[in-house]
């Protein structure tokens, strides 16, 4: 049974049909948009938190760490209540569009990226902050420099967010509605095909998902290696 399913899934992979490529492309565009927006928010957010005094810093770090535990369906439900036609932003008709998924996934990714970056900051960063300050940088320059100096950490945090977001199904299902050729992503398609007993197709989609994750990680690590920045103490 398992062997047969795997054989079939490979056959499906290499006969890459149109619907499959639409699903993959839809997934990529939604996930990349979410991760980009989330990064633009999380990176400055994490750096600003790192500037804070000990007490608020610890408090906010704890908050973001706890937010990691929020299930995707809860985020989905929360966004649903906001953008449902019966909710406050109903008039924009965002529900069951790719954009709705982007909203949910951005909310999912922000705590992940933020807390991973915060966890990576170390004691030497006080020294770096002072160095940047003393050379006359304003806040924006400071955030920019710290981001550049921590690009490896930031990149791996973004990748952690990417991994979580591309693998989630609750938000995509609830806010996207799994509409064929429109909001069907890899994970919602897996859920659908498994429900229909099409295990081979489900597995093929799973393999694609893993392949994308591996490719993205290799690409990212390649670019870190090319700009490695061991800081001397």
């Amino acid at each position, binding site marked *: 049974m398992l062997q047969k399913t795997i054989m079939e899934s490979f056959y499906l992979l290499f006969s890459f049909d149109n619907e499959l490529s639409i699903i993959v492309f839809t997934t990529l565009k939604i996930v990349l948009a979410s991760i980009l927006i989330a990064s633009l928010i999380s990176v400055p957010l994490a750096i600003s938190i790192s500037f804070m005094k000990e007490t608020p810093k610890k408090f906010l770090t704890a908050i973001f760490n706890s937010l990691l535990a929020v299930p995707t369906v809860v985020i989905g439900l929360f966004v649903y209540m906001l953008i449902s036609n019966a909710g406050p932003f109903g008039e924009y008709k965002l529900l069951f569009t790719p954009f709705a998924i982007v909203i949910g996934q951005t909310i999912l990714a922000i705590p992940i990226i933020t807390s991973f970056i915060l966890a990576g900051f170390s004691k030497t960063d006080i020294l770096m902050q002072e*160095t940047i300050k003393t050379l006359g940088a304003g806040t924006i320059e400071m955030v920019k420099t710290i981001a550049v100096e921590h690009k490896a950490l930031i990149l791996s945090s973004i990748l952690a967010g990417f991994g979580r977001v591309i693998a989630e199904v609750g938000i995509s299902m609830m806010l996207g509605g799994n509409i064929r050729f429109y909001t069907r992503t890899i994970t919602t398609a897996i859920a659908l095909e498994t429900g229909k007993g099409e295990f081979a197709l489900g597995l093929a989609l799973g393999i694609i998902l893993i392949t994308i994750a591996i490719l993205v990680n290799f690409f990212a690590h390649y670019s870190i290696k090319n700009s490695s920045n061991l800081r001397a103490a």
Partner: protein
Amino acid sequence: MIYKLKDIIYNYGSRKVLDIKNLQIEEGNIHVVSGANGSGKTTLLKIFNALIKVPKGIILFKDKPVEKDNIKLVRNNTVYVHQNPILFSGNVSDNVGYGLKIRKFPKDKIDQTVQQVLNLVGLQNFESRKSNNLSTGEIKRVAIARALAINPEVLILDEPNAHMDRQSLEQIEQTFKDINKIHNTTIIISSHDSSFNNQIAHNIIMLEKGEIVS
């Protein structure tokens, strides 16, 4: 008087770090803050650069209190070099030019200044060396060059002579004297090397357990 400090008290937890009744720093001189480890030298130096906020006391920079908008004034005109400085990623030139780049200097002017200050600290032709590929002494001199590039009114250095070989030390000493003479730069140095202190200082501030003793 470029700095006037009065009734400064700074505590770290319950430990008293600084307790300065009255201190004035004269413009255009080389001042050395001397004292044992833990006597409050670093804290005092950071106060000069507004890196540390003092809860009690008055600090005047050019007769203006160091607070709110004036902090920017202090930062733009003074620069502090850590005892164990860190460099940014990239090459030596990126590091030394950093202060000028954020001050929006044109690129050719930055390159010219970088070359000049690297000559001053004895690191000719180091422009394109990677910053993660330098010895401790070289890192220190790059950090000093990075501070000099800004051409500050006040140059503050924490233990610049630690971890430095004799030859570089002599060169650095000469550099400090030169820029003090040419640009009338006020230099504040912390050090516990008495021969170095006597060589260079116009004025020595002795610290003991956070208090000025002479």
